[in-house]
């Protein structure tokens, strides 16, 4: 933190602030003084009275604390208890956490969530990169239309997405009808009711939702790559494949990190979709932590275990997003601050 403000700080700040910059400020002050103070000024906040800052933050902070920070702490507290939500709770210590690691029925949701990330994060990022690379080679007409359509799944309520996809994956749904129509009737099944296929089926919905986001993100990034880089490798006789690995992929590193972060977080916060499509079934074939928290807390009255699951999910999300950031920052020079 900087030193307390003084009258001179405020004065120079005001002088510099009134100077010409990209917003075309006021004239009439000596340019040399402006140049002198501008550099200093940029590092300092304007000479506002400091205590006022707290007053501005206070209303938001109060609400945020009561309805987000305190519950977060309470979740940690609940995770250390055995509680059925009705009778008196008893101290559990680390029992609930130990169960997360040892009890197969509690470990399974985490394993399901991790395999779902292949569908929610890895596949969409790979597809997005491929499509963006193909689109980077020339100007595509109607891009606004394609962008709008590809991004559309992102704005639909997950409940609606779930209802729509249930109709596709139902025993007499669109997918099975199509399979029968092309003579692959032997492959038809109740996709969401099948022990082996329910998880990939739910994952496919995730791929459908997240791919558009990745494409749009990468397209924006591709447009920022200087044309000359492509021309240079093409003169070297590079084909599309080498062009992709030599130019496109390295240039999209930052976008890849953003895409991975957003899709991983979305893939682990997938309560709505699971609730609507499978409710964790058949058996527990598609149970994920996000669903188990709800199921345990409000359906089977294992509040402590549910809270531990919630904490575990939070830790997993933070660990994965931090490692994505690390992975990208570690290899890029001068980009990170």
């Amino acid at each position, binding site marked *: *933190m*900087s030193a307390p403000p003084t009258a001179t700080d405020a004065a120079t700040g005001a002088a510099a*602030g*009134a100077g010409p910059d990209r*917003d075309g400020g*006021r004239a009439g002050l000596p340019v040399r003084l402006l140049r002198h103070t501008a550099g200093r000024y940029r590092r300092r*906040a*304007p000479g*506002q009275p400091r205590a006022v*800052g*707290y007053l*501005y*933050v206070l209303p*938001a902070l109060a*609400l*945020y604390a009561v*309805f987000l920070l305190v519950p*977060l702490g*309470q*979740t940690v507290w*609940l995770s250390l208890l055995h509680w059925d939500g009705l009778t008196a709770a008893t101290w559990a210590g680390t029992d609930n956490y130990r169960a997360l690691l040892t009890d197969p029925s509690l470990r399974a949701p985490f394993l399901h969530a991790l395999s779902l990330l292949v569908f929610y994060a890895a596949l969409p990022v790979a597809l997005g990169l491929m*499509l963006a690379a*193909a689109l980077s080679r*020339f100007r*595509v007409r109607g891009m606004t239309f*394609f962008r709008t*359509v*590809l*991004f*559309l799944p*992102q704005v*639909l*309520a997950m*409940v*609606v997405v779930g*209802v*729509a996809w*249930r*109709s*596709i994956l139902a025993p*007499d749904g*669109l997918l099975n009808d199509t399979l029968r129509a092309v003579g692959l009737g032997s492959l038809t099944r109740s996709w969401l009711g099948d022990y082996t296929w329910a998880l990939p089926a739910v994952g496919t919905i995730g791929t*459908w939702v997240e791919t558009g*986001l990745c494409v749009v*993100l990468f397209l*924006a990034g591709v447009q920022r790559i200087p044309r000359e880089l492509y*021309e240079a490798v093409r003169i070297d006789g590079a084909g599309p494949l080498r062009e992709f690995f030599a130019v496109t992929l390295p240039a999209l590193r930052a976008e890849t990190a*953003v895409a991975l972060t*957003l899709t991983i*977080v979305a893939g*682990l916060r997938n309560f*709505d979709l699971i*609730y609507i499509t499978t409710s964790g079934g058949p058996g527990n074939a598609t149970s994920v932590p996000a669903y188990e928290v709800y199921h345990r807390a*409000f359906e089977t009255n294992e509040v402590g275990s549910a*809270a531990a699951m*919630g904490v575990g999910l*939070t830790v997993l999300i*933070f660990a994965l997003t931090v490692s994505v*950031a690390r992975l990208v920052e570690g290899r890029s020079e001068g980009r990170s*601050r």
Partner: protein
Amino acid sequence: MTGPMTGRLERSATYGILALFAAISLTPVIGVLATAFGRQSSLDTGFSLPDGLNWSNFADAWTRGHFGTYLTNSVLVAAVVVTATAVLAVLAAYAFGVMRFPGSNLLFYLFVLGLTLPQEALVVPLYFDLRYWQLTDTYWALILPQTAQSLAFGVFWMRTYFRGSSRSVIEAARIDGASSWTTLWRVLVPMGRPALSTMVVIVFMWTWNEFLMALVMVSDEAHRTVPLGLAFFQGQHSSDTALLAAASVLIALPVVVVYVALQRRFIEGMLSGAVKE
């Protein structure tokens, strides 16, 4: 570099792939639309092709499915959450963006924490807290937690705007004798309408689509929002696909209309969540 022939071939291939992706994106959407306008008696649980435009499914969803009530609840909750988030986030982000006070960074990071925090880590104690305060089955149980969660994005997003806003404008206002309060509402907020509207559409969409909070906090029908209404309707009438589809259209339509009109704001706002300092 590439000959005109291969160039043309590559172009058509690329457009082909693009069209395929677009078709895959749209298939479920078109399926729902087609089913919504289809005949109700169809026993198929998959999509069906309509034999004309049957508006009766919508009327049925409105009355028999009570979607009129649910839509009213959703509008009310979304309006309050969006307004409250906008006001509180602007105030806090203004302080974080242009003022400096001890602990401001720490406080700001507390808000950023909420961007990646899963609701599942909050919902259990929130339910017991709100039940204790006798707020479950009220609009407050939907409004207060959702406003708090939206503040994470609101504060983060608006602070970026205030950081980027011109110092000279702020100082000019000060020299004219404006207080920090007047500067905010008379100068910075009017100038920040684009940033503000991005935040508003994103928070509106999240609130409108919110499911878990509504499911946990509301058990009576009178306070159900549309996503919750659809989930319960599916549980009871899963074979009534035409009605389900019509209800889905009613839920998705407001957000899709705003999205088509303000596409860039949606994309910009939704992609910003992962961008850290």
